[in-house]
């Protein structure tokens, strides 16, 4: 019965994830050329594009998005790869990995708020060195955050994305033979870091392309991080066009649609440029490697990158530590390094609002994680059976690589048309769509590597295929399933734009509230919200690590306890 339904279910899911994608694209392409039935505009023309290209705000926003997106990705990749290269065969590498993994589960907005409270002129960094080093008794008149060049935005993006790229690189290395490859190169006389550059790095990059492009697309188009810590006169293009879309006169919608298309094209163009530049670098590196020199200056490049990575990790830790300090601070005057007194009042002040926001975030994350898991299992089971995945992969990657701000406005128009806007289920639907690629990608390798002989044997022993599927296959895959659930939970908690646009202010989560209040100046309340936003996925992540490990022993202990007779 289930196997008969498998094919229709697969096509239903593919339809379900490709229709909104198509709707999202049509919803910006047509209005950008003047066709917008909702506004009574039915003629095609290019005025919106002309209008857009005459906007100085467009060009400065585009420049900022390109600059901050590319530089943040470049630095994150340079730092992450350098730290992996330097630490890989050191005894503390495993501990470093274990320390970094929980950071992945913390939402962007949460860490960015921490970075804001760290880097601001009155932030913790200046407090730590004041007044004994700086002589400051008042916060200096500096633009260390929301600076016009987007430097603080770049730092915030590197802080969040460097651990992810390290995680992706460590995962890629498990598919290679890093120890033996390095050993072979070193025995040919190559210095350790030079050996890395010539032998392992080219192989790792091939496996890292997708994570790098995901980071690049995110960095160029992110809204919440740029709203919190990015420049605002002008803002990045993603933030600017969000403002145009939300313009109450609706006159800027066409122009905003054109800008949203430009942003999507820029992401694709940057991916192409990245690939071309990488090919050129790869070609040069191969020539360099063939010259026979056993030690290259590239090692100094790596050592500098590793120093940058260590500095970034320090900033990450401080950004996370400053949140609970502000959340429990009663009185913290500048330039004191620590609060003069502590209190729980900030928590109680957030009170009911905190509980309702946490409940909204939790319920959305839990539901989207479970639905996402079921959908991913159906897709993967179909893929295992029919050995085809190209279409699924392209559609899912489009969700990750195309800017949210581009797709969501078209989708919003569709939701308005169907009168589904401001609805909890619409928000959940978008959360599922944005979570599904992650659960699919996380589960794909372990799921397809599963030895089907176990399940076949179980089916021979007992003719209950669905029960066997759960008790044998899913039970044996419980560790990757739990990990993917934790990742999706975190992805859902972090969703800002989908919640904002589909919820229309009626559905609020910890993320939408924290971003909205980030600029309010109430650091204590914002810290409480950011802390709650970080803690939810962190708990889920810890449970996902612990439960599979102790599941079997715990289950047997319970059985001994209660079923001994």
């Amino acid at each position, binding site marked *: 019965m289930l196997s008969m339904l498998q094919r229709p279910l697969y096509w239903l899911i593919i339809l379900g994830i490709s229709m909104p994608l198509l709707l999202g694209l049509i919803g910006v392409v047509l209005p950008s050329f003047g066709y917008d039935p909702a506004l009574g505009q039915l003629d095609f023309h290019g005025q919106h594009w002309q209008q857009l290209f005459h906007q100085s705000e467009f060009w400065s926003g585009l420049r900022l998005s390109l600059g901050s997106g590319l530089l943040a990705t470049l630095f994150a990749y340079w730092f992450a790869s350098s730290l992996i290269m330097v630490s890989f065969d050191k005894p503390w590498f495993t501990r470093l990995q274990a320390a970094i993994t929980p950071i992945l589960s913390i939402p962007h907005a949460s860490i960015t708020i921490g970075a804001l409270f760290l880097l601001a002129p009155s932030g913790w960094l200046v407090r730590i060195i004041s007044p004994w080093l700086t002589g400051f008794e008042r916060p200096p008149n500096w633009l260390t955050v929301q600076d016009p060049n987007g430097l603080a935005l770049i730092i915030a993006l590197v802080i969040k994305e460097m651990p992810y790229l390290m995680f992706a690189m460590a995962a890629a290395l498990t598919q290679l033979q890093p120890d033996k*490859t390095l*050993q*072979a190169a070193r*025995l*040919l*006389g190559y210095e350790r870091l030079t050996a890395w550059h*010539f032998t392992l790095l080219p192989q790792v990059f091939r496996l890292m392309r997708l994570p790098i492009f995901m980071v690049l697309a995110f960095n160029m188009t992110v809204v919440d991080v740029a709203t919190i810590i990015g420049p605002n006169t002008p803002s990045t293009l993603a933030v600017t066009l969000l403002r145009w879309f939300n313009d109450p006169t609706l006159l800027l919608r066409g122009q905003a649609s054109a800008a949203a298309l430009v942003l999507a094209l820029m992401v694709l163009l940057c991916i192409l440029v990245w690939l071309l530049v990488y090919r050129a670098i790869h070609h040069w590196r191969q020539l360099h490697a063939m*010259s*026979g020199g056993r030690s290259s200056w590239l090692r100094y490049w790596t050592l500098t990158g590793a120093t940058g990575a260590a500095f970034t990790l320090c900033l990450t830790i401080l950004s996370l530590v400053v949140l609970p300090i502000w959340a429990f601070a009663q009185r913290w005057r500048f330039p004191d390094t620590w609060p003069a007194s502590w209190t729980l009042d900030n928590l109680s002040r957030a009170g009911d609002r905190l509980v309702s926001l946490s409940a909204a975030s939790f319920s959305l994350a839990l539901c989207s994680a479970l639905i996402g898991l079921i959908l991913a299992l159906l897709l993967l089971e179909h893929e295992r059976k029919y050995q085809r995945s190209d279409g699924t992969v392209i559609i899912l990657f489009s969700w990750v690589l195309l800017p949210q701000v581009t797709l969501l406005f078209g989708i919003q128009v569709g939701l308005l048309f169907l009168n589904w806007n401001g609805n909890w289920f619409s928000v959940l639907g978008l959360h599922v769509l944005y979570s599904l690629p992650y659960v699919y990608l996380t589960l794909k390798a372990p799921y397809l590597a599963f030895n089907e002989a176990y399940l076949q044997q179980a089916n021979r022993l007992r003719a209950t295929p669905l029960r066997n599927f759960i008790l044998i296959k899913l039970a044996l895959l419980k560790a990757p399933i739990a990990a993917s659930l934790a990742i999706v939970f975190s992805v859902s908690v972090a969703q800002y734009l989908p919640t904002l646009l589909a919820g229309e202010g009626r559905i609020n989560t910890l993320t939408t509230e924290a971003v909205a209040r980030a600029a309010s100046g109430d650091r204590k309340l914002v810290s409480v919200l950011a802390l709650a936003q970080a803690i939810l996925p962190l708990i889920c992540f810890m449970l996902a690590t612990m439960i599979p490990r102790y599941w079997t022993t715990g289950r047997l202990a319970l059985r001994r306890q209660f079923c001994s007779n």
Partner: protein
Amino acid sequence: MLELTSVQIAHKRQALIKPVSASVNNGEIVALMGPSGVGKSSILAYLSGSLSSGLQGLGQASLDGLQLMQLAPEQRQLGLLQQHPLLFPHMTVAENLMFAMPKGGSQTERYRQAKLHLAEVGLQGLEERLPEQLSGGQQARLALLRTLLSKPNALLLDEPFSKLDKSLRQEMRQLVKQAIEKANIPAILVTHDEDDATQLAVQIIELEALG
């Protein structure tokens, strides 16, 4: 000459095998044999500087009077051939060889040299192929050639023939023996195959576990 003096492998400071001492002359091969898991490969890993964490190497080794344990792996000038040829998959056959050659000469000259060396081992015409496009025997010959082109002062052979079929095995044994004699360097062979040891080695050392 390669000299081992009381070389042992230990775990948590507890020696796992009886000490091994040997002198290997240039152009000669000494074989280390023993049951599986006794630590044969660990001795080669200790000599080459790649012993896995958790294990410690004890004792000294010198190559032409140079104390190996005081040097980084890349400075020891040891060649290592293993079961897996470990050819770099992103480099062509010629590039794998050019990567191993000592520095010097233009790219064109180095490429010409690589082609000449390939012809010497019967791999002519394969220079632009990727390692995955070669047969097992061709990969083994390429790995040997690559190791020799780096001009090592000694060769470590860690069951290099165990993945090959019978006829290929015999061919590779001869090729390795000739190469070691031609390069006039000492070699240590780790094997569990009596034929490997008796046909190649001038001395066979049986490793014995402690406790």
